[in-house]
């Protein structure tokens, strides 16, 4: 479902945010650290710092619904993946280098739009949890006439 080109975009180190909702349909959200496409593109693992994931965990465990938006500040490319949670677990030490690499890529993006790295020194990225989603739909969200179009 998520093709190789889109997977490369998701995993290159861009802005990632995950949204959920509670039983009263009030939205919740958190910034994510990294993402990984698995199972031939049918699943997406989103890594969220533990302190942020605590806001989402109840929602995910009760209804499983999630939306993940990716944005690259450099050229405004944006894409949204919707899915349903498969499982949630602590991120492992083996995964930490991958998270750090993607996070570094995101900070590089921020630098390109004028936000120095010193702004992010107190942003928390570890420990993290891994939220595995079964992908249901994908939407193009880059500003332009195709914004909002379902692409998968």
């Amino acid at each position, binding site marked *: 479902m998520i093709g190789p080109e889109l997977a490369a975009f998701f995993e290159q180190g861009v802005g990632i945010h995950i949204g959920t909702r509670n039983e009263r349909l009030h939205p919740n959200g958190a910034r994510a650290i990294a993402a990984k496409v698995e199972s031939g593109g049918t699943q997406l693992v989103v890594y969220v710092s533990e302190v942020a994931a605590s806001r989402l965990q109840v929602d995910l465990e009760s209804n499983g619904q999630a939306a993940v938006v990716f944005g690259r500040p450099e050229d405004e490319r944006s894409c949204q993946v919707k899915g349903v949670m498969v499982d949630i677990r602590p991120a492992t030490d083996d995964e930490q280098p991958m998270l750090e690499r993607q996070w570094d890529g995101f900070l590089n993006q921020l630098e390109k739009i004028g936000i120095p790295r010193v702004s*992010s020194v107190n942003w928390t990225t570890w420990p993290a949890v891994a939220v595995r989603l079964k992908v249901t739909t994908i939407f193009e969200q880059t500003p332009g006439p195709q914004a909002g179009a379902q692409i998968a």
Partner: protein
Amino acid sequence: MTVTLESLATCFQGLLPSQLFTCSSDGIPNAAYLSHVEYVDSEHVALSFQFFNKSRRNIAENPHALVFVLDPDTGQGWSLRLKYVRSETAGPVFDRMALRIEAIASYCGLKGIFKLRAADIYRVASVEALPEANACDCARVTESKLDPVFTVKALQDLSARIQQAHCLETLVDSILEGLEESFGFRNSYILVPTDQEGVLVTMATRGYAVGSVGAEVRHGEGIGGMVAEARKPIRISGLLRGMLYALAMHKAESEPQLTRLTRQIPVPGIPNPESQLGVPLLVRGELVGVLCLESEVPYRFHEEDKASIELLGGYLAIAIQNMQWQERTAESAAEPEPARVDAASPAALRACTRTQHNVVYYAGDECILVDGEYLIRGLPAKILWRLLSTRDATGREEFTNRELRLDKSLNLPEWKDNLESRLLLLRRRLDQKCPSVRLAPRSRGRFALEIDGSVALNLQP
């Protein structure tokens, strides 16, 4: 709420994208990036409604939303829990948001494409710090904060420069020079109204390629034209412009009939401005000009600078208008005795270089071309043609502002003709495009038309 919206003013500049989380009535969450969250009052913010997207559809079904904003100075993230209240299609909030969008779209040469459908007003139920995005230890990190712009000292320095200016030309140059040396703004220009209704022209520039004096801007075009139209300062940070620019490019590609504005003289502009500021120069409601500043530094102009910016605009406007009146008053007292050319004058000696220029005046368009290249149009063109024709017919080289004012063929308005601004513009265009033809000041209200070589005049309908 414990944290006030006022204290988050820096988050509402559009420098960094915000995130909007919504949910449909059937329980599907949605996450999207937002270019801007607008502060409305201590309990409300506004989000722009430009497109019928998923977020907007969700809000129509379920009024609860969540927005993340980030303080560009400290790195602190904030979570705002919102509830949709109403959509406004008129009023100050709508106007402010529409103006910003239009100014950016116009900057891309695509004015009128992006329409703000409504300013959606949301009540802010709570504001909470995002624990995963804590502020850095340093209180302020951006260059602009370490280097405050509109200090009293800088304003005093600029004022001192202005006091020393003895004519309109030195005044406008000293303003731009002072803005660079006292405020650090290396790229700036001043637009003044032309004799054509709703059209401005660059009279002075600093930090741009030679040749940008004389660029025309219509009301509503670019940041200068938008400021002239709205008569309010406009401040734009880089990211919002960038997002709309991306949209503009997509739109332009998909609709090839949309063409960019073609100009005889390009409007000044640095390639990648991160911050832009336009300030109307107003005296008792009259638009004397527009000051435009650009910077490659993101978030260069701050919300808290607004009062200083408006004060500066008013001060510069009075200084320019006073100088215009002073020049006109002094000129009335001068003796208007045109002198005939002296065979031994420097101008006559320079004529020995024998350069030949072909000057064509298109009377219908009131436009002058020199050697096939556009020079100037409108009233300055009529003035130049009148000077060249007189010199050609009588040999006279010296002229007075007063005789131009009395010349009915020029149709100068009796009140506020801005003749000095027109002559300054003409002088600068000649300096740039045809330096062998010069308007050389002789005394207040008196100048000489100096020409190296010869000029062939050609009148076209």
